[in-house]
């Protein structure tokens, strides 16, 4: 045995040669307050145990003490990198309980917002994953693009991040006239920008050496361990909730679901890049087919009237007062609704007891399910690969810890 082999041989009985190292919760590359207890033999990872809960804010219990309408603002804070997707999942779940149908214009606008959120989230992923591996330039590029998208969200919803713009029954208000031209110009410039990112990374030899063959998981293992989203599609499983269980009219849009078979970090990178392109394609179709008409379901017990009418006549004021202060009653029952957020299957299980406050809301967050697979993905790899793998499964700690 060479010296190196001796160093890497672990004496299982005495545990000699095994070092326990703590990574986080404060760490530049763990994407938040994630703590990982590593068992290392030199540079080789023997085991990685994630310790979570450093951002557990008890939002589920908080939502049990708010009316259905008030809980919308809390949903933003789960996956704070794609807040509109969270709003949408919650609102669609409550609308299923209420058996409410949103008019066509509201549906198309929801699709536009969801896809813009997907592009925004993937841009952050790209910048931070590249930054973690050592390529610092894409971070500045993608955050520059992201500013354009945040301008659009601010134009429509009033805030850059936690807009709470998607409401039960539709949207808070209609988009301003400057919104669609801005979306269109963003879609027009996106291909050139994508060429920039790809030129820096995709065929880059260092990038490929850092990402190919790293963090491999087979399709069967991925399904068993509950992976979802681009992480699952990078292992060859063509499962996308927008295609398999469509919502908001996604069945009327023509788009592909990118799938790669290698199952490594590079495959997931390619899947997400292609998803940005497909999102742009969906956006163009949505902009073409955007109809006129109302954006909210005409159910006055659930959807507050427009602001102009609220300050105008007394019935609208009383209506608004009822909804905001007392809340509306939701029929008793339970429902599970899941949609495809940028990170994977985001599901809301809502149990109602017939009152204005939800009895129990459980949020099935994609990052929680994906993070479970971390030990399996990094076992036997080098320590530097951990950071690449965490970036590729794209976790958000608000999602993991709820």
């Amino acid at each position, binding site marked *: 045995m060479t010296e190196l082999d001796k160093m890497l041989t672990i004496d299982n009985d005495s545990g000699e040669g095994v070092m326990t190292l703590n990574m986080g919760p404060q760490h*530049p590359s763990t994407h938040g307050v994630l703590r990982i207890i590593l068992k290392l033999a030199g540079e080789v990872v023997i085991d990685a145990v994630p310790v979570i809960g*450093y951002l557990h804010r008890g939002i589920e219990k908080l939502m049990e003490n708010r009316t259905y309408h008030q809980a919308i603002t809390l949903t933003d804070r789960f996956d704070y990198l794609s807040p509109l997707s969270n709003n949408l999942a919650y609102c669609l779940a409550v609308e299923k309980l209420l058996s409410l149908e949103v008019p066509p214009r509201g549906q198309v606008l929801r699709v536009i917002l969801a896809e813009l959120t997907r592009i925004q989230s993937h841009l952050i992923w790209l910048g931070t994953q590249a930054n973690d591996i050592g390529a610092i330039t894409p971070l500045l590029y993608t955050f520059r693009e992201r500013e354009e998208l945040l301008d659009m969200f601010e134009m429509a919803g009033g805030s850059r*991040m936690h807009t709470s713009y998607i409401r039960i029954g539709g949207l808070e208000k209609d988009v301003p006239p400057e919104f669609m031209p801005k979306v269109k110009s963003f879609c027009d410039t996106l291909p050139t920008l994508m060429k920039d990112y790809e030129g820096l990374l995709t065929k880059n030899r260092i990038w490929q050496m850092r990402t190919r063959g790293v963090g491999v998981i087979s399709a069967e293992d991925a399904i068993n361990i509950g992976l979802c989203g681009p992480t699952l599609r990078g292992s060859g499983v063509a499962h996308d909730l927008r295609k398999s269980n469509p919502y908001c009219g996604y069945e009327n849009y023509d788009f592909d679901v990118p799938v790669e078979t290698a199952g490594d970090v590079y495959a997931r990178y390619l899947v997400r890049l292609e998803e940005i392109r497909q999102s742009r394609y969906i956006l163009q179709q949505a902009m073409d087919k955007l109809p006129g008409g109302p954006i909210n379901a005409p159910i006055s017990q659930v959807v507050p009237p427009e602001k102009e009418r609220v300050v105008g006549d007394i019935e609208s004021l009383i209506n608004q007062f009822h909804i905001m202060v007392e809340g509306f009653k939701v029929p008793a029952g339970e429902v599970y609704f899941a949609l495809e957020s940028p990170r994977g299957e985001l599901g809301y299980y809502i149990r109602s007891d017939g009152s204005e406050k939800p009895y129990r809301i459980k949020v099935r967050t994609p990052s929680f399910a994906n993070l479970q697979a971390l030990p399996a993905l990094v076992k036997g790899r080098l320590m530097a690969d951990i950071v690449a793998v965490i970036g590729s499964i794209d976790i958000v700690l608000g999602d993991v810890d709820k």
Partner: protein
Amino acid sequence: MGIEEKLPDNSVITTTIEKLVNWGRKNSLWPTGFGLACCAIEMISTAAARFDISRFGMEIFRSSPRQADLMIVAGTVTNKMAPVVKRLYDQMPNPKWVIAMGACAISGGIFNTYSVLQGVDKIIPVDVYVPGCPVRPEALLDAIVKLQKKIETENLRTKQDGGIEK
């Protein structure tokens, strides 16, 4: 322009040591990257191209608290994370400053629950509070400017434990 032209050649400028030290400290604050939750993303946006925090001297976010002098607590501090925050604060060398960024760091924000610390000032002293949920990058830059103004007026003898008095 100004005073530099009026001075004769080979001249000296007088100032107090306090002003010089404060000027140096305030213009080269190095934050430790302590993003906890959503406000961390806005903090990264502030460091990115549009808002560019490095024009205020914060060129790099140091990963290790031992190399930093500013801690921007960006996000919710939970009871589980509180000992970690205190330990990181203790690891920072003097002089150090703290900005509590966002409603959660100031007072727990909207999360008055069983697991959230109702304000980071319960465990560490805070210099500047920035409201917002999340805090806009412009507001964070305003907080940094306010902190710089505060540092300008600091008295070297009585400032924290890094003063000359000891």
